[in-house]
């Protein structure tokens, strides 16, 4: 059986995007995306865990039976997240001070269990890790875009505090898009997250429809205007 790596990449980043298509992981998505930087941090940490759990779960897939697979997966995921949490806390302490809040939250991210169940438990190690990476990057991309929109409208800045997350070299990312901006509070509060999320989902549907229209050879029927 050959694995269609191109398809994994396409599905992870766009076609089967965790947030926009599967509508999974909405809790962390809406909670942390008040700034683009937070979204990036959460996305990258989740990607790391997705790759690690994809690797571990595809390794044990041969011995795990159908009946106990869920507790086993949960156990493995929780262990991976806790280990990642401790290692980041010990050796990348500055990063931990920014991400610390988000890391334990990853356990509750249903995308991780979702990918373990739907993909890693049925596939070989390499495709599972690639699937984790691509799903994670797709998740990160949505979080960053959502964070950027909310941050610009809500507080008029972009990538605020990026240097705390990525180091001083990335200080150039921090922009004040609209100086002396009062900001729309609602975009920073949870309802703003839902609003932007709704628009993003609608935009993805529109783009998909447009792509489908272009790809299909059928010439669309001309709609006849009926006078009202």
């Amino acid at each position, binding site marked *: 059986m050959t694995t269609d790596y191109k398809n994994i990449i396409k599905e992870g980043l766009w076609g089967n995007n965790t947030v926009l298509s599967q509508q999974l992981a909405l809790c962390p998505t809406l909670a942390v995306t008040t700034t683009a930087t*937070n979204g990036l941090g959460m996305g990258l940490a989740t990607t790391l865990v997705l790759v690690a759990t994809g690797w571990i779960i595809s390794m044990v897939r041969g011995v795990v039976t159908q009946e106990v697979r869920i507790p086993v997966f949960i156990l493995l995921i929780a262990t991976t997240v806790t*280990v990642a949490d*401790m290692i980041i806390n010990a050796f990348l*302490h500055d990063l931990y001070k920014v991400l610390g809040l988000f890391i334990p939250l990853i356990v509750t991210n249903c995308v991780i269990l979702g990918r373990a169940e739907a993909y890693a438990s049925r596939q070989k190690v390499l495709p599972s890790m690639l699937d984790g990476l691509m799903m994670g990057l797709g998740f990160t991309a949505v979080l960053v875009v959502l964070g950027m929109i909310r941050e610009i409208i809500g507080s008029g800045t972009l990538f605020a505090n990026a240097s705390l997350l990525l180091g001083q070299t990335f200080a150039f990312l921090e922009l004040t898009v609209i100086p002396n901006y009062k900001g729309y509070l609602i975009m920073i509060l949870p309802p703003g997250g839902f609003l932007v999320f709704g628009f993003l989902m609608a935009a993805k549907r529109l783009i998909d429809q447009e792509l489908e229209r272009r790809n299909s050879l059928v010439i669309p029927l001309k709609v006849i205007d009926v006078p009202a």
Partner: protein
Amino acid sequence: MNKGIAVPSYRQRLGYHAGLLGGIGLLASMVLVITDIETRVAIAQAKAADQKASLEQVIPKELYDNDLLQDILLITETDQTTATSTNVPIYLARQGQQVVAAAYQQVGYGYSGEIRVIMGINIQGEILGVRVLSHTETPGLGDKIEERKSDWILGFNGKSLQNPLADGWRVKKEGGEFDQFSGATITPRTVVQIVRHGLEFFARHQQQILTQPLPLPKPTDSLGSPSTS
């Protein structure tokens, strides 16, 4: 799960399921224990360094010559309304034998949860510095109490219970001296209250704090956290 492969019959037994779950649980705990042992010291060091850094922000380094983390006085405060008592560790800054300043944490409840503040006070009862250690206020609004977001918190420097007097320890909207933020009043109001309570706390225990003798040299750590060695 194993498409096209016959599942061996022993996998249907209860014992296999139990053993599998137990075995994986055992492996997971082993991994956790090993990671904990490997990272424990580094995490404790990082935490101590953080604590030291936050203490240095509220008491200028030039003022003292001792190790604040080793010179701690525990004061028991009893809350009259809830009848609970808490131990507040006071970090004492000394020049030689003499206490010159003290730092301690205070907690209050803001718009969406606990706000933890560390404050440094000199022996005259004047604030040397205040910093917010942790909070869960609205990002972009209430988080202006953080020093890296806004210099609002520096406005407490040099204040005491006499400056301003009791009426001034409020936000401007309520006739006091301290700015509120546009869109957030509750958060700065809470911080002003926390700091004022902190000053009153110091005033109540001033005598005990100033006369606290030097601690006996201890070989173990006294971070107030579980032993890490």
